[in-house]
């Protein structure tokens, strides 16, 4: 027979595990629902909207690449547009110059960007903060010039750029049009790569990457090979953004040097910060923001579109200083506290769950400041 006291202890032990299982289950349901909605969307909307949604996925993927490096590893980059551009050009050159089928161009685009990323990652090891930003910034500024360079015109097409053919719908799917097929193709690649990123960040390697962000010296003292992980993260980050660039070449059907100016990199950075550093779903929010908000701003006033965009950005950052992901965590915390008032018996547990999360958040902000 159990005394009442033992009963509460048992409950106290069992409750967090059960709650965690439930939360995991909820998360799976939300994920499944989101994927289902994403699958249905291209059949609800048509034409241009499908193209825009494809672009949201592509931006989300590119921002994910930046997030792996900046959000998870703490290395700052203002030049990811360069990797985006390199990926796009690899796909365009392979398809149009060498007649390679479009789906075979994605792995080489990723690999080329991985190698370029490693090459940039090596000098980056010695630099941090603004000085590191300058190296990546140099990449972003130099790329359009390199693409226009007359010695490479045979490949890149110079200022004219390259027109890319839209991928054909495969023969076994005759009922959908080319835009819808491209959307579904992009969705499949995006899901695959988000799954990969989620596994990476949840693994031992991922913890090493984040430990370097939180405190590099302490991480090195724990036996983590910081230079190796930092360089590899740079490479993988470039790979992700490069694949996104390759997909964007397919979606836009055109690549030109001036499509990959510094502003692309700045857009990625805005999307990353507003989506939330170190959050995977946040990347997609960032993609949505970067693609749709400039359009909304333009519809408010053509002449003052830039003012409207800036004001919206300021409002978002004042309301959600740690991005959409941080805001979601904050609202989640409020809801948990609300529930705790309703169920006083379980008071201790939600607190214990909520507090460490807040502390991690705080430390993250601090370590970002110290960098």
């Amino acid at each position: 027979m159990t005394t009442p006291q033992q009963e509460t202890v048992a409950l106290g032990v069992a409750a967090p595990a059960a709650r965690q299982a439930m939360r995991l289950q909820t998360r799976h349901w939300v994920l499944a629902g989101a994927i289902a909605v994403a699958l249905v969307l291209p059949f609800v909307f048509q034409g241009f909207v499908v193209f825009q949604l494809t672009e949201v996925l592509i931006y989300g993927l590119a921002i994910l690449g930046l997030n792996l490096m900046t959000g998870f590893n703490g290395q700052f980059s203002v030049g990811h547009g360069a990797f985006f551009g390199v990926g796009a050009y690899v796909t365009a050159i392979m398809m149009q110059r060498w007649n390679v089928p479009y789906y075979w161009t994605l792995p080489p685009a990723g690999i080329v960007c991985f190698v370029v990323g490693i090459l940039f990652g090596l000098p980056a090891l010695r630099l941090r903060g603004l000085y590191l930003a300058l190296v990546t910034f140099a990449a972003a500024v130099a790329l359009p010039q390199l693409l226009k360079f007359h010695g490479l015109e045979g490949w890149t097409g110079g200022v004219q750029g390259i027109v890319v053919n839209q991928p054909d719908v495969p023969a076994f799917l005759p009922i959908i049009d080319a835009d819808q097929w491209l959307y579904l193709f992009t969705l499949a690649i995006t899901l695959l790569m988000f799954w990969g990123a989620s596994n990476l960040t949840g693994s031992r390697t991922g913890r090493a990457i984040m430990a370097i962000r939180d405190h590099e010296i302490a991480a090195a003292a724990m036996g983590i090979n910081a230079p190796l992980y930092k360089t590899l993260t740079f490479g993988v980050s470039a790979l992700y953004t490069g694949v996104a660039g390759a997909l964007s070449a397919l979606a836009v059907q055109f690549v030109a040097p001036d499509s990959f100016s510094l502003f692309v990199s700045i857009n990625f950075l805005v999307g990353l910060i507003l989506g939330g550093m170190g959050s995977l779903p946040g990347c997609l929010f960032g993609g949505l923001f970067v693609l749709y908000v400039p359009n909304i701003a333009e519809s408010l006033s053509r002449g003052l579109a830039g003012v409207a965009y800036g004001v919206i950005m300021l409002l978002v950052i004042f309301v959600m200083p740690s991005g959409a992901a941080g805001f979601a965590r904050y609202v989640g915390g409020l809801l948990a506290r609300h529930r705790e008032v309703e169920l006083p018996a379980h008071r201790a547990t939600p607190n214990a769950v909520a507090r460490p999360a807040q502390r991690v958040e705080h430390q993250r902000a601090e370590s970002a400041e110290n960098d």
Partner: protein
Amino acid sequence: MQLFLQQVLAGLANGAIYAGMALALVMIFLAIDHLNFAQGEMATFSTFIAWQLLAWGCPYWITFVLVVAISFVGGIAIERVLFKPLHNADILANLVAFIALFSILNSADGYIWDYTIKTFPTPFGSKPLFGSVLIDAHEAGMLVVTAVLLGLLYLFFSGTRLGLAMRAAAHNPVSARLVGIRVGWMTALGWGIAAAIGAVSGMLIAPVVFLDPNMMFGVLLYGFAGAVLGGMTSPGGAVLGGFAVGVIENMAGTFVPYVGRDLKLTIALLVIVAVLMVRPAGIFGRTTVSRV
């Protein structure tokens, strides 16, 4: 030899523009510990105000003083309204605010004064100096004004109580507050000074590159490169870095065969990255040591 000298001098003249921008960037970096991405747009806005005053018939030097004063007040106002609420926020939240400010000012310029390219007068004239082709009067004037500005700032920061207080507030805000320095107002003052420097460099650059809403963007890129090359913590280094960027860029364009003309910016950036490999905190920058 003649060609070499001419290229160096032309590089120095461009470099003076970059040096002014680099100086403004470093000033605000020292005052608020952030790199002001909207610095160039603030300078462009000030220059447009100057253009408007001149168009209304205000004499040049009165306009000059007025615009510097307006910019100083405007810089303080921006800090008080936009950035004070964010001073505890993440560095990246501040970055978004800078990008937003950039977008707002750039778009407002275009809306108020439209996107046509405007000429801007120079107070120095544009005759060749000393009858030679090496440098003209405006370029020489620009060099002199930049040098005077740097000298004044050096005196302000090293010789006055207020300058010392500002440096203390940026270097260690908590300790500075404990000895009675009003850190918040020092930051605002830093913004005001940076906006005023920006206004001066904008008015000096406009006669060369002509005035339009995107006038400063290219200059900002070079200025940033110069500031990092010289070291973000050293105003003198930033000025030298700005001049160096101008000269390297010009030299690469003239003396590097085959790729030079098309890729001069790329070559300049490569040189800078190579220098940073050897001196990771810039040539004159202080390496910050932190206790673990």
